[in-house]
């Protein structure tokens, strides 16, 4: 690999890894620690990068494993993100009405209540824009399994939204 530098090759993955770690640890400080460990580990292994097909997928998988380990060790119930206090709200959301924000919170809770695998796949697809193939490679499962998990996740959310809105 040519012209590798931490700044241009590894550091740009930070926010993506952070969103993933945050959805698993449900804690902003811990998610940041997970990202830090992941980036350092990826950087320390730069001598073997040529043997890695997809560096980003490798980083995501490493980050997920670390976040899961941390959540397990802490014995934390990763059900909700309610404890997160300082999530930065975008300008877009800050312009929404109170009612809309409440509904946003409902959807957020629905998403956070999903089992970890469904939640992670939904994040990688809907937030990070990954293809089914990329997700399958990252999580080391088949594309069919990816679609099955995603289908279950979306269906649950759709049904809950319908139920909440009396549809």
């Amino acid at each position, binding site marked *: 690999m040519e012209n590798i*530098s*931490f*700044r241009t090759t590894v*550091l740009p993955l*930070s*926010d993506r890894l*952070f*969103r993933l770690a*945050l*959805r698993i640890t449900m804690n902003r400080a811990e998610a*940041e620690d997970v*990202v*830090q460990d992941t*980036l*350092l580990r990826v*950087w320390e292994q730069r001598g073997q990068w040529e043997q890695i097909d997809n560096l980003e997928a490798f980083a995501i998988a490493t980050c997920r494993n670390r976040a899961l380990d941390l959540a397990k060790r802490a014995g934390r119930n990763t059900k909700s993100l309610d404890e997160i206090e300082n*999530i*930065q*709200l*975008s300008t*877009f*959301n800050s312009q*929404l009405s109170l009612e*809309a924000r409440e*509904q*946003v919170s*409902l*959807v*957020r809770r629905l*998403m956070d209540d999903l089992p970890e695998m469904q939640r992670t796949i939904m*994040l990688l697809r*809907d*937030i990070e*824009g990954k*293809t089914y193939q990329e997700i399958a490679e990252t999580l080391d499962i088949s594309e069919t399994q990816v*679609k099955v998990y*995603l*289908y279950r996740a*979306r*269906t649950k*959310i*759709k049904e809950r*939204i*319908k139920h*909440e*809105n009396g*549809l």
Partner: protein
Amino acid sequence: MDYKYIEQLLERYWECQTTLEEEAILRNFFRQEDVPASLLPYRQLFIEEDEIAAEHLGKDFAEKMLQLVGEDASVHVCKARRLTFMRRLRPFYRAAGLVAIMLTIGDAAQQSFNDDDTFASQQVAEQIAIDSLQNITIGQPEQQSAALVTTSTDTLDAMTR
């Protein structure tokens, strides 16, 4: 307005049959304020996903990481500088000047190789010199010209020895 297309896309989205491009169309649609009542409940999902996508680490995180790996944060910063048109062309001038110098040197070297004034053998050199002298002496008295040729030949012999 006909929202049939969006409704169809949304149905395919739930079934995981949409492409990333189609999902981007849905996302853009639900970002707008003017969404029909039948689709409004689903708008929140896409708004929420936009929210999650906007979550990011603080700026100090990058600086901390660069310090940890020993990469100075200021090393790679490039200062922007406004360039005039003439200044932008400066590299071309330099390149053109260099090419001109190289061509001149090459031409001079070639010329020196072509102007080879040595002869293959002493006899050839003598013969050329005698022919040249005879051409010069045309029109001079016969005795004088014969003496000149003889003297010149002797001189050539002495030089070539």
